[in-house]
């Protein structure tokens, strides 16, 4: 597995290759690879029948459906509004623009537990937004809607920060040419801008989705955590651990890991495909 160099020039001036790569591999194995493999080995001990029984239990499938479903909705919201935010930040000038740009990273910097209690306070029936929405009969906190709100908060920077560099590199003159030739704003967007942006959009969407699926801290406060209704998969893992049901916790973890890795590999393969097809950007 250890990669060896192509000794093309047979000349390596700088020292430290063996030391740094060796250290990297050892540290990576000790901290990440071996511990993660423990989850897979433990699930092998379950046997296929037991594993399947755990994973297809109604409470487990309900939590997985909720985690993936709410993450999907949140990632879609972020794809739309993230594009608008990124567009406005790259293309337009307005007061406090630097501040607006800086605050986009807040979900990266703010501990998830803090985000969780803050969103709950906002959307609780007596909160600033909760009381407002309550008049329309909409309840957000302690319902699946609250989960979507928390996951939208968590995922926003992924879309904005993936789109920004691509938008900065996008040639303004092509749009101006389209406008000069009589294209409407909508036509220019659909025919000129979107084709150039969608690989980055899909990447941002997938990153925000992947982060949302595993998210725990910001969700558990606002979710209500009712089994079968508003209980996300990571919370079910914690619940099973607290009941010393290691087999159950491990089985759910394996399902989540396999799905997350598939998404991550998908993103990489997709970027590779998009960039070789559309040329390096």
């Amino acid at each position, binding site marked *: 597995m250890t*990669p*060896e160099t*192509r000794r*093309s020039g047979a000349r390596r*001036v*700088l*020292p*430290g*290759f063996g*030391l*740094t790569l060796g*250290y*990297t591999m050892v540290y*990576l194995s000790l*901290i*990440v690879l071996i*511990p*993660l493999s423990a*989850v897979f080995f433990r699930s092998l001990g379950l046997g296929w029948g037991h594993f399947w029984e755990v994973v297809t239990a109604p409470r487990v499938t309900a939590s997985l459906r909720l985690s993936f479903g709410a993450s999907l909705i949140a990632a879609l919201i972020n794809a739309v*509004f993230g594009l*608008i935010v990124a*567009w*406005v930040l790259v293309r*337009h000038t307005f007061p406090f623009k630097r501040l*607006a740009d800086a*605050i*986009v*990273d807040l979900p*990266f*910097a*703010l*501990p*998830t*537990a*803090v985000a969780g*209690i*803050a*969103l709950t306070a*906002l959307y609780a029936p007596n909160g*600033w*937004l909760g009381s407002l929405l309550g008049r329309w009969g909409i309840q957000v906190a302690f319902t699946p809607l609250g989960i979507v709100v928390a996951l939208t*908060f968590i995922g*926003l920077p992924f879309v904005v920060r*993936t789109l920004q*560099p*691509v938008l900065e590199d996008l040639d303004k003159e092509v*749009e*101006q040419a389209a406008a000069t030739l009589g294209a409407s*704003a909508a036509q220019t967007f659909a025919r000129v801008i979107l084709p150039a942006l969608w690989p980055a959009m899909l990447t941002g969407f997938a990153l925000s989705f*992947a982060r949302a699926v*595993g998210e*725990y*801290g910001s969700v558990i406060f606002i979710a209500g955590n009712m089994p079968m209704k508003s209980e996300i998969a990571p919370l079910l893992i914690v619940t099973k651990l607290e009941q010393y049901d*290691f087999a159950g916790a491990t089985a759910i973890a394996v399902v989540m890991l396999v799905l*997350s*890795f598939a998404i*991550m590999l998908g993103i990489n393969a997709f*970027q*590779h495909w998009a960039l070789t097809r559309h040329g390096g*950007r």
Partner: protein
Amino acid sequence: MAAAETRIPRPLPKTGRLVLIAVALTFLGLFLVLPLLVVFVQALSKGVSAYASAISDPTAWAAVKLTLLVAAIAVPFNLVFGVAAAWAIAKFEFRGKSALITLIDLPFAVSPVIAGLVFILLFGAHGWFGGTLRAHHIRVVFAVPGIVLATIFVTFPFIARELIPVMQAQGKDDEETAVSLGATGWQTFWRVTLPNIRWGLMYGVLLCNARAMGEFGAVSVVSGHIRGLTDTMPLHVEILYNEYSYAAAFAVASLLALLALLTLAGKGFLEWRQPELRHAARRARWRENS
């Protein structure tokens, strides 16, 4: 610039532009600014003296100290790793490099809860090494070592992924010159490489530290929630909140929110010192795959 704007038709009319800006700012305001604001308002809802006493509570202080301790161990570990990985990846060509970069990013794809579970399965009472650890009276899970390990796992990629593109952009000419003039490897690193990458290094440390101090899910699973002993600041916020001590929970949370604001300010400063740092990691990922 103004002249050009009048001559070339703009794809988007002025009203459209204003609507877009309004939508973006409303979205940011509702989803990001309000939650931040509510933390401070709730923290001070019982008055300044209640705030002060919530923060000076001994268990709150124990949580602050533990959080600082965990970050002070986890960040240097990942810093050394980040520098080593970036040196190997940026200065040398070898097969499997992009696979290695993907593996370094792996912890990003793992739910924090699963990161915690992993260490329970390894070091817990029923874990692989549980018996050995008990025989030697070493506690890892439900103790500080477990919290540190889970934090290292979760923050593992942060410094490496910022440093790799920075070092790649520097190239290796400076280092090769130094070595050909007779400098040793360490001299080259300390005198040539380190000054070149110092802003990128600080950038990675800043982001890594923010996550290390704020991590909740992974730490929550391995901590055991022993008040005053294995209780980090985010966990302490949860305990207070679940006890319905809302003002106290938000008081501790406000300290973490201040840390977040400081992190954003530091990030802004470093990006101002070295604009390439902005988006460096994401740009590199695009290039890597092309």
